[in-house]
């Protein structure tokens, strides 16, 4: 039986287009810090390094990277605040 694809509704959006490392991570960290546990952040970035950076940061910071998608040169990350 096919499972329904999960749709996550972000509680907050931040736009980091045009910014480079370390700013997408710095702004993500600030935004997550101000959110409540379980809430979801959507972050947009066109820094080619942000995919690898976000994977590493989420792992180290203990946050859940729910989804990474890419449209053209723009990445969209969905992060759930765990702690």
């Amino acid at each position, binding site marked *: 039986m096919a499972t329904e694809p999960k749709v996550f509704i972000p509680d907050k959006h931040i736009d980091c287009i045009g910014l*480079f*490392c*370390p700013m997408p991570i*710095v702004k993500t960290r600030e935004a997550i810090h101000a959110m409540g546990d379980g809430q979801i952040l959507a972050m947009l970035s066109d*820094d*080619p390094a942000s995919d690898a950076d976000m994977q*590493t*940061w989420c792992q*180290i*910071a203990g946050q859940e990277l729910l989804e990474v998608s890419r449209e053209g040169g723009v990445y969209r990350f969905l992060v759930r605040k765990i702690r």
Partner: protein
Amino acid sequence: MERRGAAPDRVYFDYAGFAPVDPRVLAVMRPFLEAGIGNPSAPHSLGFEARDSLEAARAKVARLVGGAAPGVIFTSGATEANNLAIRGVAQRSGDKARHVVTSAIEHISVLNACRDLEKTGGTVSVLPVDSEGRIDPETLRKALRPETVLVSIGAACGEIGTMQPLGDIARITRAAGVPLHADAVGALGRAPFAGESVGLDLVTVSSNDLYGPPGAGALWVRQGVKLVPQILGGGQEGGYRSGTENLPALVGFGVAAELIRTEAGHGEPARLEALRERLADGLAASIPYCRLTGSRTARLPHHASFVLRGAKADGVLLDLDLSGVTASSGSACAQRTGTPSHVLRAIGCAPEEMEGSLCFTLGRWSTLAEVDAVLERLPPIVARLRALGLPDPR
């Protein structure tokens, strides 16, 4: 020489983060702030004097780089020079499919300027490094393509101190007809450097790295290498960097370049290296699970960087600071994001080591007593932090 700096009683080992400005440099700068000799483009006698002073500074910076004076383009610092080199050369090529080669341990201003090219259709090859941070010139040769417009390799890595075989790299880029850019911050004035004769085409210089004022730098460009300017305006600096030149800072920059070049001829790099060796040997002997990162031999003489197991750098640095010692973790970016530094990842550091990165950079006013103070104060700090219930460093 009189000890300078904001906190003369402290042990200061963060010269790469900020170097105190030499008092002789300050003395030369002062009249340029107070006496109206400010604008090198002004059509009066004070303007002519300003222009002469600017050109004298240009000649001094060129001598340090080992290149022709007209090739010096003054900028606001090394970051701007790196941007001008990479974006300027790449944009000039006209081809949207342009390809640039760099390495995994470059300064973030080099890496981000390269990534920006990727956004507009360019491609970037990021060369790997070995466990000491050295690039294999053969790997670089294989990375070159017909559409390669620039190779950008730092002369030395600011985080782990490793120097690159620039001569070998330049032979390859020259043979291929591809311009070679080197960010020479850290290396200039501390290691033998002959930009033009070694085959470099663009060289980044920082004033503060030479005990000159912050907010000044330069890109030296070999005659014939074409750039697209990144700052447009009144056409100063040969049209390659508009904006009235920061004359007091640039005059200071010139004097700083001359001083460090003279000092290098009188044994200062060897003095710094002896202090560094004492620090590296002493810490390796007195702190278990502490090892030097980067190359021991092909290394900046004033640079010592370590990774510790079982203790986090931010805790160690805070305790060191409280004990009167200023040092750094080597990477401002990593400190801001809490993620491991790209340099430590590239040299294959174990995950449990990456959080314990310490960087000590020595300078003109560093003494044996300062080194011995670190050797005395750091081991008990690390032992105490390790005892606070963190996992066994093994």
